[in-house]
């Protein structure tokens, strides 16, 4: 029966084979499409941007209507706001995740919180910008000024509010990755610790968190690379069109530190204004590409850091942890 069937030349089967080959080709093409897009974008940016990048470009302030000079204030601003953002977001995000995984009983409230976190991740970033301006500057800032009688210190756009707005934006990333990291710690380790007479907090501090720190750090770096490229949330909350001096204050007149109450320049916003607000967009074109290249490299290295960190902790998990 079967051998008889095999002997008959089967036209239908041939048609199916052709059809299959066509589909395969289409799927192949679709799979490589994103790669092509990436190569094209990166290629164009690197090609047009690499020529601008010099030591001066990386270390000096823009001059002559931003058509010349460097982008150092933007790099400095991006780094400092990212640092401030993670300082705000990490404790809140990790704390929230610890509460949800370790303390809260699975129920309506945890579901509500989780839904809120997921929805937070889906909000367009410009909405965060408007929220940041409305809530942090006009509400919190103004009232702080009134209560503390500080004139107009808190009620204006500055790095603190921009960082706080970005922190809310990246909070879901931190919460979700921390939750995953905590859930990955075997329940048996918690039982063992509790059975030895550890309290819940001691168990979390000494057994759970050390094992979860790889995942938490990875989440933090992903949050950084997500936040570092954002323009919309800081648009209304603190970044400056042009501010050649660095947002630095001398603590007690001696120790220099980032001034969170100052405005700042930022890479992605700088690209935006050079492209749309500059008096001579054509002349700034090479600088735009250069700035983009710097921003992309920055995010790339942050992501690379996250990947290396994750693989490092995956490897060391369950192996040597020397003191």
């Amino acid at each position, binding site marked *: 029966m079967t051998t008889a069937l095999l002997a008959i030349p089967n036209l239908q089967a041939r048609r199916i084979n052709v059809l299959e080959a066509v589909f395969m080709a289409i799927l192949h093409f679709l799979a490589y499409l994103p790669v092509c897009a990436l190569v094209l974008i990166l290629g164009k940016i690197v090609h047009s941007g690499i020529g601008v990048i010099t030591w001066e470009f990386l270390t000096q302030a823009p001059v002559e209507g931003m058509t010349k000079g460097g982008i150092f204030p933007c790099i400095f601003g991006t780094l400092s706001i990212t640092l401030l953002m993670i300082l705000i977001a990490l404790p809140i995000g990790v704390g929230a995740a610890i509460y949800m995984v370790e303390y809260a*009983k699975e129920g309506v409230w945890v579901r509500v919180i989780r839904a809120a976190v997921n929805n937070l991740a889906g909000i367009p970033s410009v909405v965060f910008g408007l929220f940041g301006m409305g809530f942090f500057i006009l509400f919190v800032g103004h009232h702080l000024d009134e209560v503390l009688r500080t004139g107009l210190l808190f009620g204006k756009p500055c790095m603190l509010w921009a960082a706080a707005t970005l922190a809310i934006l990246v909070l879901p990333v931190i919460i979700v990755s921390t939750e995953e990291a905590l859930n990955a710690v*075997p329940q*048996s*380790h918690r*039982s*063992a*610790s*509790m*059975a*030895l*007479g*550890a*309290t819940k907090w*001691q168990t979390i501090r*000494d*057994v759970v968190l*050390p*094992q979860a720190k790889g995942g938490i750090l990875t989440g933090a770096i992903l949050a950084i690379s997500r936040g570092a490229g954002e323009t919309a949330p800081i648009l209304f909350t603190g970044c400056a069109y042009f501010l050649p001096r660095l947002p630095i204050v001398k603590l007690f007149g001696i120790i220099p530190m980032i001034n969170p109450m100052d405005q700042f320049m930022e890479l992605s916003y700088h690209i935006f204004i050079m492209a749309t607000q500059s008096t001579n967009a054509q002349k700034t074109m090479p600088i735009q590409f250069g700035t983009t290249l710097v921003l992309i490299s920055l995010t790339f290295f942050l992501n690379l850091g996250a990947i290396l960190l994750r693989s490092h902790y995956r490897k060391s*998990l*369950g*192996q*040597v*942890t*020397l*003191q």
Partner: protein
Amino acid sequence: MNRPETTEKNLKTEHKSGVEMDEALVKIKTRALSVYYGATQALKQVDMDIKKQAVTALIGPSGCGKSTFLRVFNRMNDMIPDTRLEGKATIDGIDIYSPNINVVTLRRLVGMVFQKSNPFPKTIFDNVAYGPKLNGVTNRSQLEEIVERSLIQAAIWDEVKDRLHRSAMELSGGQQQRVCIARALAVSPEILLMDEPASALDPISTAKIEELIHDLKKEYTIVIVTHNMQQAARVSDYTGFFLLGELIEFDKTERIFEVPKDKRTEDYITGRFG
């Protein structure tokens, strides 16, 4: 499980009479102890006297409540939501479910070894020193002393003394389990609860653990849950047989295995069901 009322009464008087023990020798005592998980009753009115410095084995088919019973004594059942307990459980005459009992202190008195070895992904030293550190021991030489003593007691010192600062995860399953026993011993408990401590181990490691249990009973009161009849017969002085949350029979181990009073006990130990 429909039995005439009279049989149940007879059974109860019988298994009580089976273990007449001197009140002074009783470490743990339960009276009419029932445990509920939500609406399901996991333990039904269990009365048992557990003797000091002896090994008491709890046997019975899966889901019979023996692990639940074990976890009553260090209140690990508290961690499971919707758990409710009725009746009385005492250690040295003190009600461990009374509101003024500190669970943390109780758990330092009642150590536990789990079915699957669960060392922390830390060094062997840090695993064993974990409990003492919780108790506030910070002195390095004191910690070293405790770690060495515990590892010797757990019969693993010779195998690990040169690699105390390597990860406990590199050890074999049997070695890991003995490190876990050392970790439990390091807080100097009086009672050691063992929940099928050898069920995941090969025969040689199992033999080592059993030998260890035999040595440990000189100092500790040991309660062990096991699926393995031979193991219960080998290591224990007393045996309790559980079925569907009920303590069917409790007696000296040799009597349980040689002259069981209840038909169901006999059926179980001879392997007719389980």
